[in-house]
């Protein structure tokens, strides 16, 4: 047991998440949610600031060449996951997602989209463009617990023992490596039970009548 615990500690890396949202309250919330889940967090209030932070500078303001990595004076900090709001003035979360996936240096960073609106076509578009997850706001701890598999996937390519770490929960049976479309691993599901509220991710969930009912419950205000 202690041997395994020390193995956990040795492989425990603090993941760095970049959160993008134009709302101050939502930035505070997501920061707290992520920090509570032991992630290192940087928050920015726009897509352009996010790209700047990631070291991607648009050249096409001056000349029409594709965006390139800006190797300037400051060191680019490693980012393991980007979580962004969809509705932002200027560059939307979708625009940001596209730019990241078009960049050779950044395209492997998992991107998660958040939105306060449950619009299936929007969710679909984002997932097709390469977003790993689509969270409906307000984002909860149970949502944040779904991030781990995506983060570990980025690291497990050269560290096989991390997969065992994933599976060491009170579940004896081995689990296959998750793909973005697959359901969660048991540990994440156990964590999400604290809400008993299974919204998010796939289009099926967003379109489910139960979900919709929950969303519109109590909206009986009449002017």
């Amino acid at each position, binding site marked *: 047991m202690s041997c395994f615990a020390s193995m956990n500690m040795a492989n425990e890396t603090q993941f760095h998440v970049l959160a993008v949202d134009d709302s101050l309250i939502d930035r505070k919330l997501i920061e707290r949610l992520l920090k509570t889940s032991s992630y290192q967090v940087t928050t920015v209030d726009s897509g352009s600031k996010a790209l700047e932070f990631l070291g991607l500078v648009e050249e096409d303001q001056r000349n029409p060449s594709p965006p390139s990595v800006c190797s300037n004076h400051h060191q680019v900090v490693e980012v393991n996951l980007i979580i962004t709001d969809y509705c932002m003035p200027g560059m939307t979360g979708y625009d940001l997602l596209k730019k990241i996936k078009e960049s050779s240096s950044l395209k492997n960073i998992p991107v998660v989209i958040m939105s306060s609106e449950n619009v299936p076509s929007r969710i679909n578009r984002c997932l097709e463009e390469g977003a790993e997850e689509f969270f409906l706001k307000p984002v909860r*701890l149970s949502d944040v617990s779904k991030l781990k598999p995506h983060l570990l996937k980025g690291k497990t390519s050269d560290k096989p023992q991390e997969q065992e770490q994933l599976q060491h929960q009170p579940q004896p049976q081995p689990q296959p490596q998750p793909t973005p479309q697959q359901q969660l691993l048991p540990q994440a599901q156990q964590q999400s039970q604290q809400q008993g509220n299974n919204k998010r991710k796939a289009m099926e969930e967003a379109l489910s009548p139960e979900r919709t009912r929950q969303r519109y419950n*109590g909206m009986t*205000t009449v002017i």
Partner: protein
Amino acid sequence: MLGFGADRLRADMNRLLALLFHQGVLDEQFLQLQQLQDETSPNFVSEVVTIYFRESEKLLTNLRELLSDRDFSDYKKMGIHLNHFMGSSSSIGAKRVKNVCVAFRAASEQNNRLGCFRALELLEHEYCYLKNKLHEFLQMEQQRIMGAGARYPIQN
């Protein structure tokens, strides 16, 4: 003596929250805010609610100014303010305020000026009630944190 005061304070806070839940003023998202508060972030709820007050008041002022303009026609701008208000209200669990925003937005999308006026009045009313109750809650929270539970606070 201190212990008794703190317990009473906590009971009062819970009673207040139960009332607000029952009235639909707050929803479970507010509980989520509380869950995120701990030793490393002991004033989280208070910080977030304070930001919410500040932003909401600005938004309400903007909405009132827009509608007060006799030549008003910028429903799109109104929609932007409302989306912001909706989002922040939803994020802190302010259910009734959020629902009024939804109705307000519907009136705005129909270019229904009268409907917008009525929605704004209702919104101001709901926000005012929420603010008073949350302020009450935060005061009690503050006292609880400071351990000043020996004396029941006198409200003036």
